[in-house]
Each structure stands twice: as structure tokens, then as C-alpha cells.
């Protein structure tokens, strides 16, 4: 039996955000928007969901009088992402057998 894929991560935009954040130390909201080609509204909603799940931390601050939103992945987020990838590999491995 395969484990169900984590529904928080098994979503196109949330998975894209997590894949970006796992590769970097921290990223600005504008960087994530640029790389995912998402709209600001949709991205905000999905980032909020990831934040509520405890997978990412969001820091809002001001830099040179402009608001800046910084995101970084948490240890819980790393563990969930690794588990998700392992489950995916399990599914794909099972199919290939």
C-alpha cells in the first residue's frame, strides 16, 4: 500500500513554492512570483496555507521604505517535502515494477 500524497503539497503552486524554497535560504515574495508565474493574489493565498501548515515562515518588513515579504522553509517543511518526494518515488517505482 502506498501512503497518500500530502494534500498540502500535492498542489501545483504550493509544490512549486516549496521546491523553490527548499533550494534557497530565503526568497522574496517577488522572486517566488517571478519564478512561478503566479498572480500575486493566488500566490498570497497559497503561501498563507503553507504558513498555516507550519511549512514555511513569512517575515514582513520594510526595506528602503518599501514593504518586503521574505519566505523561508521550516524544518517541518523540509521533513514534509522529503516525505512527499519519497512517496512520489514509491508510486513511480511501484508503477515501473
Amino acid at each position, binding site marked *: 500500500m502506498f501512503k497518500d*500524497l500530502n494534500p498540502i503539497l*500535492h*498542489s*501545483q*503552486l504550493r*509544490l*512549486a513554492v516549496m*521546491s*523553490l524554497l*527548499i*533550494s*534557497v*535560504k*530565503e*526568497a*522574496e515574495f*517577488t*522572486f517566488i512570483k*517571478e*519564478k*512561478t*508565474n*503566479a*498572480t500575486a493574489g*493566488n500566490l498570497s493565498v497559497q503561501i498563507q496555507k503553507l504558513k498555516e501548515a507550519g511549512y514555511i515562515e513569512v517575515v514582513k518588513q520594510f*526595506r*528602503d521604505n518599501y514593504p518586503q515579504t521574505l519566505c523561508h522553509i521550516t524544518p517541518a517543511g523540509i521533513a514534509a517535502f522529503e516525505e512527499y*518526494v519519497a512517496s*512520489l518515488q514509491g*508510486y*513511480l517505482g511501484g*508503477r515501473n515494477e
Partner: protein
Amino acid sequence: MKEAEKPMTEQESLALITAMINKAKETRHDTGLAAIMWGTVIAVCSLVRLSELQFNYRLPFDIYYLTFLAVVPQVYFSVKEGKERKVKTYGEDFFDYLWIGFGICIFLMIFITSTMFSDLNPAAAAYRESSGNSFAFRLNEYVSALFLLLYGLPTFVSGISMKFKPMLWGGIFCWVACLVTLYTPGKIDLLLVAVSAIFAWLIPGLIMEKDYRKAKKEIARQHV
């Protein structure tokens, strides 16, 4: 990415993860300006000193003071790049600390060699006076080797870590030149330092700058 949540297959998920990780990897685009500036400054200093020796003249100031002046634009470039940076990768901290450490080593080496000169010169003068012979040991024949040894380290490490061959070969060039200067006269040493600075920093810096402009144009094109 579409607003609606569309179901993904496992293959699509893996493909998305791979694509995003690759996009994040492509992020580091050094402007190359600092490398261009340092490559130029070190090459100019060495060539001017060489011309002073070759044509028997002396500038009213030590040309190597240019290296102290170059710290000002370096700080400006670092602050500017830091402000423009929208993402911080794990590797960037490493490179920043590596080059800061290198800068500290260079200024310590300048201090060490000038202390050695000031200690050795009176001893050489005393030897000449007492023996009537010239003092055979010339410290300045070895100074270039010490600096080239240092130049090679961060250049090689940066080149190999970033998989950026021009810098990797530039670092190796510095170390080869370091060995060669042990057996060549002072004027050739200065020429080798200039050529090393060109290979290690100026040329890689120009390539980085070209890549940076290309990447910036590409991003602008995608957002039209």
C-alpha cells in the same frame, strides 16, 4: 501558473519539483563588476610598477595605494548587489565569507611583507658596510610568489564551486605563475602578476558581466 487547482500526476509533480529546483539554481547571477575592477586594478598596479623599473622613473605616490582606494567601489558594489538581491542561496554566504577572508589575508600579507622589508633593510645595509660585499638575498624576488599563492586560493575555490571554468583555470594560472616567479627576475614577476590578474579576475569578470546582462534581458523578455 493557473489560478485553478488542477490535479497532478506523480510524473508531473516530479517534473515540477525538478523544474523549480533548476530555476532556483539559475538564480545566482554575479554582475562580475568586482572581478573586473580588481583584475584591472592589480594588472594596472603591476604594469605601472614594471614601467617604473623598466624606464627608470618614479611616480610621486606608490601605485599600490590604488588597491586601498578600490575598497570604496567594492563596498558600493556589495551594498548595491545586496539590495538588488531578491533571494539568498546557501552558497552565497560561503562565497561572501571566502572573499572577505581573502581580502583580510591580502592586507595582512601587505603588512607582513612591509615589516619584513623594514627589518631586513638595516641588516642588509650593515652586512654591506661590514663585508663590502653586496647582500645576495633579495626579498622582493619572493613577494610576488606569496601574493600569487593567495590570489589562486579563492579564485580556484570559487571557480570549482560555481562550476565556472574561466575562474577555475584563472586560479590554477595564479599557482603556476607563483612557482614560475621563484625563478624569474622581478620585472618578469610583475608581468606575471598582471597576466594572472587578467586571467583570474578580469576575463572571468567580463564573462560574468555578459552572462548577467543576458539573464537580465531574458527575465525582462519573459515579463513583457
